[in-house]
């Protein structure tokens, strides 16, 4: 077996513990089924591109992007745990290169990101079934979003994990950053109607681009703006991945 695949096998084994699975599945389900339906009495329709969606549908599709982002936390946690528990050094003293280690992390977050997006898509399917617009682009766009979203957020988590040594520091920073990403984005609510500064903040957040692209794939609402958002995702993912790789390569023992 190739060294990268061996490390992916190991990464998945150490990451998929019951706590993580509950976090990955139960948490978004509560959002979709509890918050989604509870807010229906307050929120009528949500405008999205040239269509209108009911709130549970809007939220369920946003949760796909939200879950991709959450699952990529795994990458930061793996690196941080490996450093804390001496496994990074041990792996580097074994039959692996730093490139193998970095690639294995990317593959792991890619796999976890796609699986997590699939789970939420399946669970949310009955909710947004009526509005779905299947086209030849739907699946490729969802895969594109899963892969680039995973790389982007995985890189952010990796960068944080290489810079921090204490568990308190790591937890505080990662929770603050990801809380900002989650709630200052279009995952939960649309940009239209929000105050101008908040609307600007929405578009400083990569999760907004990710969920917009996912919704465009599911509801078939492609526009030039969505293509620009896809390009932004690609550029950000590549840029942040390069920084994460550089930092990991320089990580000292």
């Amino acid at each position, binding site marked *: *077996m190739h060294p990268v695949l*061996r*490390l992916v*096998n*190991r990464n998945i*084994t*150490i990451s998929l*513990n019951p706590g993580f699975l509950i976090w990955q599945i139960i948490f978004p389900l509560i959002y979709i089924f509890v918050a989604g339906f509870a807010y229906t009495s307050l929120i009528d329709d949500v405008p999205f591109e040239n269509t209108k969606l009911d709130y549970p549908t809007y939220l369920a599709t946003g949760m796909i992007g939200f879950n991709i982002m959450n699952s990529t936390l795994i990458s930061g946690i793996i690196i941080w*745990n490996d450093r804390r*528990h*001496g*496994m990074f*050094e*041990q*792996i*580097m*003293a*074994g*039959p*692996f*290169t730093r490139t193998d280690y970095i690639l294995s992390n990317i593959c792991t977050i890619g796999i976890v990101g796609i699986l997590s997006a699939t789970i939420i898509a399946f669970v949310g399917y009955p909710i947004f079934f009526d509005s779905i617009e299947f086209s030849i682009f739907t699946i490729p766009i969802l895969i594109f979003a899963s892969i680039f979203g995973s790389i982007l957020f995985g890189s952010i988590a990796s960068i944080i994990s290489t810079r921090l040594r204490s568990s308190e520091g790591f937890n505080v920073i990662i929770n603050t950053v990801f809380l900002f990403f989650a709630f200052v984005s279009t995952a939960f609510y649309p940009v239209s109607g929000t105050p101008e500064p908040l609307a600007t903040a929405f578009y400083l957040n990569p999760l907004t681009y990710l969920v917009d692209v996912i919704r465009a794939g599911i509801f078939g609402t492609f526009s030039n703006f969505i293509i620009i958002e896809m390009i932004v995702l690609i550029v950000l993912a590549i840029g942040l991945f390069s920084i994460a790789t550089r930092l990991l390569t320089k990580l*000292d*023992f």
Partner: protein
Amino acid sequence: MSCITTNSLSKSYDDIAAVDGINLDVRSGQVFGFLGPNGAGKSTTIKLLTTLIQPTGGSITILGTDAIKHPLKVRNRIGVVLQQPSYEPTLTVEKSLEKYGMMWNVDRKQRRDKVEELIESFDLQEIRKKKNEDLSIGQRRRVQVAREFMHEMELLFLDEPTSGLDPSARRKLLDFLKNKVKTGLTIFYTTHVLTEAEYLCDKIAIINKGKIIAVDSPDELKNRFGNEKTIKIHIAGIQQNLLNLLAGIQDCKIDFNSGTNITIHSNKSELVLMEVLQLLNKNNVIIEDLSAMPTNLEEIFIKAVNDSNASSA
């Protein structure tokens, strides 16, 4: 055949030399002890030899391969147990052994057999289902050392492998290592427990302030540094005038505080002992116990390091 060869190997951090031009020649099939006080450069040397860090000067050849140019080739043939603990907190003991074997590309059937063999050899039966995060420091260390034997290797680096182990686990590990060496394994071993090095090592190097200050077999080191012997005599009853009588004996250092214990340090221990015995006999002093202490590695180590510090001061 040479297993490890270094030439003028150096590693500096901000102009401070952690390893300062060391030359090593470790032969295959032996246990090479690497001793030194804290901060002497032992762990840095291990990190250099295991290709974890790059040297600032010199060359390293491991198992005939240039370790600076081909680090991965070297790492594929060696095992490393580093000083710091390393473990997967959420995995059980047997799962972490099994996964480590998988990481080294050991096939599934062989992995299963190895896990059972190592659980037996390292007394891990009772904790095999426990998670690493729930183990004591000593248990974790045993798992860490056991894990390294999940894969085949020609050379094993052990950086203080017995730290945290109880005496029986320590002895069991040393015997396990001795048996492995008989099958052709070469071991590069660092420790602070000098009795361990004496028990296990065929050759010993002492490093201080980044420089090798002595390399030889334990016996040869004793010959070189350990001419001085210690003789302890226990006498019956306190003898008030004995201190003055003993002060006349030449070529030795005598510790006697008017009590019942006399300790003699001398390079000419046999001659000095004769003189002391005659003197005690002449003064009707009854000897209750007499012991001659052979020079041990600890004394050699302290002497070598002190000599090195004195010459560099």
